[in-house]
């Protein structure tokens, strides 16, 4: 079969990429181009492999690993192939982008970065394909560790190391729960091969335990609130193409895991599973986007927006599970395809956004949007890419973000059929309303991000001296941008792939997902149906534009004079521009309880009172979960440890006493046996 060979070749290429850096160390240029070309080709092969799988059906490969757990196979079914293709797509873009971007790092441990980059891709590919518990966990942890090193790459700054540390510890704890879930399954079905794992063999209570462990474990990786705190720290710390990869693909491996568990291993569960996921999802979405909105660090903002999008994906999954447990397989299909479609979309536009942010960062060396501005004139192509990503993230038609948002809305709309009664109706109504709120907030957030970063006058010297990004970077971004537009305008294609991905699972039916005409998507599940014609919407928009244009020319083309912006007669300068802080102020005030600002102060930087004032406005947000939960937890643990340490007093007499005591205790205890 073709797929196997491609798969092997891909692994080999990535490995060569890893090893190559040890030999091309002396010339940074060669290292850069060779390693990233390896990654590029590997990703291309990944896509090919996925395509072959979609054409020829699932492929299975035995991996050359000798461990006392039986043979380790890699089973590429449709689900794996879908995510594999995702890695391929984003990976290709970032690899091309890396050619230009990593020139920043010629003096800063480039070989390590390039090697780890390949290792990262390799581990992700393995996570998505291996079908053996131990192999999965190994790949999973390797992925975490490698990404940890990448996050920590610029360890000259202390904060990066700290972020990396928090990231690794959080994900490690998450892995503990994943291990528990897997082991419980494995014991229940007395096998460690994915094909044998079946939740039905486990008692109901244990199934619930497995479910909870899986949610916590994968949720940690997915940046689900309240175990999300690592994400906004780790993503900004990493180099931008890595951040793109992490945010676009690595988070999705968690979704992959959830799909495996909820669709395949655990089987159909009780209703409350789905509801739990729904609640977590909506909380994640709202909190994420709120924090994103009030953030000034461009990459942190994107990271928080990733949290929001994971929330939306979770909504899809949760709705699907509710429908599943209610035996409405058609609607479950719709919901899950909404989730998967959003996985795809988020991978595209978030990687695009991070690459754009990276381009900005590279030329201006600042991530603080308050110091940017006016970049649209300096770097027009980057601006276009970022605009596309912003519109897509704000899930506005006609770009791809809207399609999955629409599907999610649809699946939530039919939720009352599964959740009977007033409560169900109100619950789903609130879910939809909050999802709407999320959408609006996302729009506002990215208006702010794009507007402050790219529009108006430059707010700082480095922003004024910015230049367009390197061509390879533009190419990388451009590819993704085009994909964004295409998958928004022809949603049918992607939806077909998604539905085929879900075809493998017996608990969902995607029969109703196919719409007969090429320009529209739609679904029918039972008597429910919904459809959206991208072409028609486009036509309407186009007609509107035409009308506008006609009006414009109808009355003769008037002269266009140039006049300064109206600022009440003063010569405008960048200090008069509206800031991101100001833009989000009103929201900060309305959602005080969540985004409670630690302090807002007006500092006069001018020492001499009478020499006029030089005012600076500081805001610091108090992060709810950190200040209320994680901080106290940490302190109490440290205190407890300090207390426990008092047993090691250093007195030898006491030590001998311990032995005495333990002997006596055990002797007494042993009498009973």
């Amino acid at each position, binding site marked *: 079969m073709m797929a196997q060979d491609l798969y092997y070749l891909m692994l080999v290429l990535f490995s060569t990429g890893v090893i190559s850096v040890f030999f091309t160390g002396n010339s940074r240029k060669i290292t850069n181009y060779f390693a990233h070309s390896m990654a590029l080709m590997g990703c291309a092969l990944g896509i090919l492999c996925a395509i072959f799988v979609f054409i020829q059906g699932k492929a299975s490969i035995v991996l050359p690993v000798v461990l006392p757990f039986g043979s380790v196979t890699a089973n590429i079914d449709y689900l794996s192939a879908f995510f594999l293709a995702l890695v391929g797509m984003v990976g290709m873009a970032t690899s091309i982008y890396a050619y230009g971007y990593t020139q920043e790092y010629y003096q800063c441990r480039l070989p390590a970065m390039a090697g780890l980059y390949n290792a990262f891709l390799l581990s992700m590919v393995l996570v998505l394909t291996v079908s053996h518990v131990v192999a999965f966990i190994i790949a999973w*942890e390797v992925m975490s560790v490698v990404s940890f090193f990448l996050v920590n790459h610029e360890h000259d700054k202390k904060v990066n190391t700290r972020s990396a540390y928090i990231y690794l510890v959080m994900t490690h704890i998450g892995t503990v729960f994943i291990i528990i879930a897997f082991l419980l399954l494995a014991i229940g079905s007395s096998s460690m091969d994915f094909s044998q794992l079946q939740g039905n063999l486990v008692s109901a209570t244990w199934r619930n335990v497995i479910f909870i462990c899986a949610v916590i474990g994968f949720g940690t990786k997915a940046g689900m609130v309240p175990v999300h705190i690592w994400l906004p720290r780790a993503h900004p710390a990493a180099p931008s193409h890595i951040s793109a990869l992490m945010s676009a693909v690595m988070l999705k491996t968690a979704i992959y895991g959830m799909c495996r568990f909820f669709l395949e291993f655990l089987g159909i569960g009780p209703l409350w599973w789905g509801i739990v996921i729904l609640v977590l999802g909506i909380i994640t979405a709202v909190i994420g986007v709120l924090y994103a909105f009030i953030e000034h660090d461009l990459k942190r903002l994107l990271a928080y927006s990733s949290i929001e999008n994971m929330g939306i994906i979770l909504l899809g999954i949760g709705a699907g599970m509710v429908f599943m447990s209610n035996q409405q397989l058609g609607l479950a299909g719709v919901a899950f395809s909404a989730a998967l479609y959003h996985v795809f979309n988020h991978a595209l536009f978030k990687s695009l956004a991070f690459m754009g942010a990276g381009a900005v960062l590279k030329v201006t060396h600042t991530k603080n949007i308050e110091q940017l501005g006016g970049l649209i004139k300096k770097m027009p192509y980057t601006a276009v890419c970022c605009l596309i990503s912003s519109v897509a993230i704000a899930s506005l038609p006609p770009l791809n973000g809207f399609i999955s948002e629409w599907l999610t809305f649809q699946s939530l709309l039919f939720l009352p059929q599964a959740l009977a009664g007033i409560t169900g109706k109100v619950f789903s109504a609130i879910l939809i309303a909050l999802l709407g709120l999320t959408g609006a907030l996302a729009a506002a957030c990215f208006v702010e991000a794009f507007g402050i970063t790219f529009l108006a006058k430059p707010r700082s010297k480095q922003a004024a001296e910015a230049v367009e990004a390197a061509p390879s970077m533009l190419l990388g971004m451009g590819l993704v941008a085009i994909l964004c537009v295409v998958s928004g305008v022809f949603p049918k294609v992607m939806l077909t792939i998604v539905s085929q991905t879900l075809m493998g699972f017996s608990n969902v039916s995607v029969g109703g997902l196919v719409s007969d005409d090429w320009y529209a998507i739609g679904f029918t599940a039972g008597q429910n149906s919904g459809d959206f014609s991208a072409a028609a919407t486009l036509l309407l928009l186009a007609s509107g534009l035409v009308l506008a244009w006609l009006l414009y020319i109808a009355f003769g083309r008037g002269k266009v004079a140039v006049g300064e912006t109206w600022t009440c007669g003063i010569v405008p300068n960048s200090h008069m521009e509206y800031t991101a802080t100001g833009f989000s102020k009103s929201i900060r005030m309305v959602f005080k309880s969540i985004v409670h600002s630690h302090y807002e102060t007006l500092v006069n930087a001018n020492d001499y009172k009478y020499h006029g004032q030089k005012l600076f406005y500081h805001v610091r947000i108090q992060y709810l979960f950190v200040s209320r939960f994680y901080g106290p937890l940490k302190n109490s643990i440290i205190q407890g440890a300090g207390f426990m340490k008092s047993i090691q007093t250093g007195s030898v007499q006491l030590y001998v006493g311990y032995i005495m005591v333990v002997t006596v205790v055990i002797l007494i205890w042993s009498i009973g046996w």
Partner: protein
Amino acid sequence: MGELLCLALLVPILTGLLSMFQTTTFGMKLINIIGSGLTSGTLVGIIYKIIVAGAVQYKMLYVDQLSAVLLIVVAVLTFTSSLFSVSYMEKELAHGHITFKMLRRYYGLLNLFFFTMISVVVVENLGLMWVAVEATTLASALLVAFYFNHSALEAAWKYVMVCTVGICLALLGTIFLYYAQVNAAGPHFQALSWLALKESSPRFDPAIVKLSFIFILIGYGTKAGLAPMHTWLPDAHSQAPSPVSGLLSGALLSCAIYGIVRNLIIVQAVVNQEFLQYLLIGFGMFSIVIALPFVLVQHDVKRLLAYSSVEHMGIIMLGFGVGTSAGVYGALLHIINHGIAKSALFYMAGIITQKYQTRQIARIRGLISITPLLGSMFIITILAITGTPPFGIFISKFMIVGAVFASGRVMLGACMLLLLAGIFAGMLYYCLGMTFGSKPKHPVTPLTIGKPAMLAMMVSVVLIVITGVYIPAWLNEILYQASSIVVGGS
């Protein structure tokens, strides 16, 4: 075969004696590298013999697959530690921390230490095993006290006192076992011969055997650093010269565990299985629990590693305590992995302390920017020791956890995993602090890492990485056989 065994015992003694009479550092180095090479070579030969021919008895000596597992550890560590000692001690000499006379003493004692450890593994008689274990204490005591400064003496004193008390209890236990044997067997029997005990064990009086095992467990457990008898361990490990710390942690603790296991095999024939499992699991779990706070709040890098040893001994005990073949397999594999990884870590810690002239974690900064190779090896090994894939320790840890789950003790397994995660957090926190961050303010002694030392560490790291993805068939065979010896019946 018998010759090989004798040779293995003889070579270290000779090396020791020879190095006592050396007059040049070079000769000293040469003698020891050759000697340790020979020793390891012989041990490897023995292991090979065991693989092909199975268990062998020769007069008072007896080796089977179970001993082979320990022999692997001892072989590797003998070699690496004396390789490392060569350059480490050279540096100490250069720094003027020690005199040439002390160097002689060091190598003499080191080889004696090798000898005692090997003899623990190869003797057939449980009484002699006790003697050997006690001998390891005495041989290593003077190594712990090597520098004869205040804290070294203190550590040594506690080490000897606590361990000897423990070992006395083990003797008591052994005597009770002998008593059981006397009662059970007729007039003619080999006293305390392990094989004899094994075949006649079903006829023993359970009450006495139980009593004896309690004492033996506590006694050897003291030596193995099981909480709460672990109190000597951090002091000794932190004060001994780094190669010795590596040996203590990697090999000596394992030897003590081996002593427990040998007795366990006898005991479990008559004593209530559940009782034994509770006992072992209890000690194991308690060790992990006790280790956690000391790892979370720690200021001394070598103490940090020492407490991690306590934790790992706990894991190993859990593996044996579960009692299933998978668990024992995992535990034995863990002995090997831990031995190699932890010794490597102690070597690195040794170099770090030489570089920074301090063991205070807070004063060690930016290792990776000073020596990138060492720094990366350090962080990799730390990741390995905390049970992160794709390193060997993860495999054995996972097997043990899996066995715990499989034996139906789900809560126990979950708690264990969480505790290990906590220890991971602690270790990594300090590791990152040392490895990364800005260069230290106070000057760092410019010293190059000696080639032998580098070789020693490299070998260990490579081994760790390999065992993570590839367990050779012969090793698998040995472990499988050994576990079936422990579990009983094959």
